C-alpha cells in the first residue's frame, strides 16, 4: 500500500533532512514512527501526505507516486494533525458537516462520530468553547468522516485523560480491524507498543531500526530475571535472561540451598530499546 524507496529530502541545498529511507507498509497495518522532536517524523508525514513534493527517491501510495498526485488523492486519506484544525466560531456538527462536504465518498453520519468520542451532547456547542481534549477528539473523528483507506495520526492521544485515550485507542484498533492502514506518529512508546504492528525508530532523518515492538524488545534479550540471595551475611544481586534460568548454575544452587531472598522479572520498554539503539531519549 505504501512503498518508500531511497527517500531523501532537504529543506536547503546543503544538508539532507531525510536520508535514504526505505520501508513499506502493508494494507491493514498500523505502522509507527517513533522519534524525538526534530527527528524528521513530521517532515516524513508531510512527504507521505503530499504536502512536500520536492523529495528525491520514490514514495508510492496505492502505486501512485505522491509528488504527482492530484487533489482526488485526498479522497482516500484522512489526517489527524497534532494540533486541532477546526473553525472556532462554528459548532462541532457544523465543522463535521463542512469537512464532510469536501468529499465525494459516502460519509459516516456526523452524530455517530460524535457519539464515538463522547461528544454527542456538545454537537451544537461552538468549538471555541471546547476544552483542549474535546478539540482533540473532534479533530480525530474529523479525519474519519469520509472513511479513508489510509489514516495519518499525529500524537492522537496527546493531552487526553486515560479514559478518553483508551476510547481513541479502541477506535484506532477498530479502524485497523476494518482494513484501514494507519500511520501513527508519536513520542508515546506505550501507545506505539500497544497499537503498532511495526515501528520505525527515526533519529536525525534516518531509520535506526524497524521491526515489530515485540521483536525489537526480544532482540535485546527480552525479559530479564532479577534475583538476590545471601552469601554468608552479604546479600548479592544478579540478573539473568528469562530464557536462560535453567542454565544459570548459581540460580539453581541457591534455589536448592533455599538462599533466595527475592526474585522478579523485568521487561524492557520500547523506550529502553529506543535509547539503547539510538542513544537518544524520545522526548
Amino acid at each position, binding site marked *: 500500500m505504501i512503498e518508500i524507496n531511497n527517500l531523501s529530502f532537504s529543506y536547503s541545498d546543503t544538508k539532507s533532512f531525510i536520508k535514504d529511507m526505505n520501508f513499506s507498509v502493508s494494507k491493514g497495518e498500523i505502522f509507527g514512527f517513533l522519534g524525538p522532536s526534530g527527528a524528521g517524523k513530521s517532515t516524513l508525514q508531510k512527504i507521505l501526505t503530499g504536502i512536500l513534493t520536492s523529495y528525491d527517491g520514490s514514495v508510492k501510495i496505492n502505486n501512485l507516486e505522491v509528488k504527482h498526485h492530484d487533489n482526488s488523492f485526498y479522497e482516500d486519506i484522512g*489526517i489527524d494533525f497534532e494540533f486541532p484544525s*477546526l473553525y472556532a466560531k462554528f459548532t462541532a456538527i457544523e465543522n463535521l458537516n463542512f469537512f464532510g462536504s*469536501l468529499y465525494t465518498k459516502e460519509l459516516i453520519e456526523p452524530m455517530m462520530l460524535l457519539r464515538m468520542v463522547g461528544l454527542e451532547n456538545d454537537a451544537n456547542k461552538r468549538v471555541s468553547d471546547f476544552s483542549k481534549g474535546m478539540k482533540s477528539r473532534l479533530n480525530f473523528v474529523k479525519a474519519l468522516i469520509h472513511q479513508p483507506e489510509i489514516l495519518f495520526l499525529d500524537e492522537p492521544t496527546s493531552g487526553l485523560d486515560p479514559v478518553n485515550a483508551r476510547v481513541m485507542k479502541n477506535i484506532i484498533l477498530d479502524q485497523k480491524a476494518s482494513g484501514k492502514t494507519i500511520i501513527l506518529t508519536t513520542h508515546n512508546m506505550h501507545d506505539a507498543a500497544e497499537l503498532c504492528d511495526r515501528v520505525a525508530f527515526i533519529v536525525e532523518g534516518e531509520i535506526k531500526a524497524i521491526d515489530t515492538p515485540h521483536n525489537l524488545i526480544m532482540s535485546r534479550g527480552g525479559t530479564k530475571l532479577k534475583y538476590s540471595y545471601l552469601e554468608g551475611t552479604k546479600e548479592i544481586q544478579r540478573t539473568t535472561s528469562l530464557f536462560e534460568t535453567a542454565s544459570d548454575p548459581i540460580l539453581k544452587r541457591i534455589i536448592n540451598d533455599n538462599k533466595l531472598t527475592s526474585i522478579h522479572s523485568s521487561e524492557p520498554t520500547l523506550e529502553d530499546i529506543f535509547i539503547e539503539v539510538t542513544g537518544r531519549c524520545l522526548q
Partner: protein
Amino acid sequence: MRAYVASLKFGYRQITRDNMLLLMIFGPILCGVIFKYGIPILEEYISERYGLGKVLVPYYLLFDTLLSYIALNLICTVSSFIILEEHDDDVAAYLFVTPIGYSGYIFTRIITPIIIAFFLSLVVMLFFNLSELSFPLILSLIFLSMLYSAAVTLFTVSKAKNKVEGLALTKLSGVVFVGLLVPFFVNTNIQFLFGVLPSFWLAKASVSYGTSFFIPSILLGAICSAFWILIFYNKFKNKLF
C-alpha cells in the same frame, strides 16, 4: 468541483457570522452612494458657505479613481480576513490535504473573491461615477485596481499573523494611497519617483486617458502590481508551508 463549491459556500457562511465582514460586503455600494450623492452635496455646501467657486468638481476624476479601488479593496479585505482566521484556526493547512488542495484554496479564497469584486466594482462604477467616465476608462481602472487589490491582499495575508494584525496592516497599506494623489497634484517628472506604487499608475492612467501615455500607464501599472503580487505570493506560500 464539489470541494470548491463547498469551500465557497462555507466562506460565505463565515462572512455571515461576522458583522464587520458583513458590513464590508455592502461597503462598495455604500461608498458608491456616498461618493455619487454626498460629494456633490458637500461641494454645494462649501460653495454656498464660503462663497467659493467649484472646489471639488476638478477632482471628481480623483474620487472616481478612488472609488474604483475602494470597491475592489473592500471585497479583497474580506477574503484576506477569512484567510487569516483560517490560518489562526490552523484550518488552512488542513484544507491543503483535502480534495480542495492548495490550488483550490488559492482559487476559492483569493482568485474567486477578486473576480467577484471585479464585477461588483464594475456595477458600482457604472452607476456611481461622478465624471461620466467612458466604459473603456472604467474597465481600465477596474483592471488596474484588481491587480493592485490582489497585491494588497497578498501583502496582508503574508505579513499578518492574525486578524487583528491584518486590520492594522490594511490600515497601514492605506499609506500607499499617496501614489493616487501624485499624478493629480505633481506635474513634473518627480512624480515618477512614486512609480513603484501601483496606486500611482492607477491615477496616472486616469489623468492620461485620451493621451498617448494612457496605454503605457496601464501596462506599467500592470507590471508594477504583478511585481508586488509575485513577491508577496511567494512570502504567503512560505508562510503556509
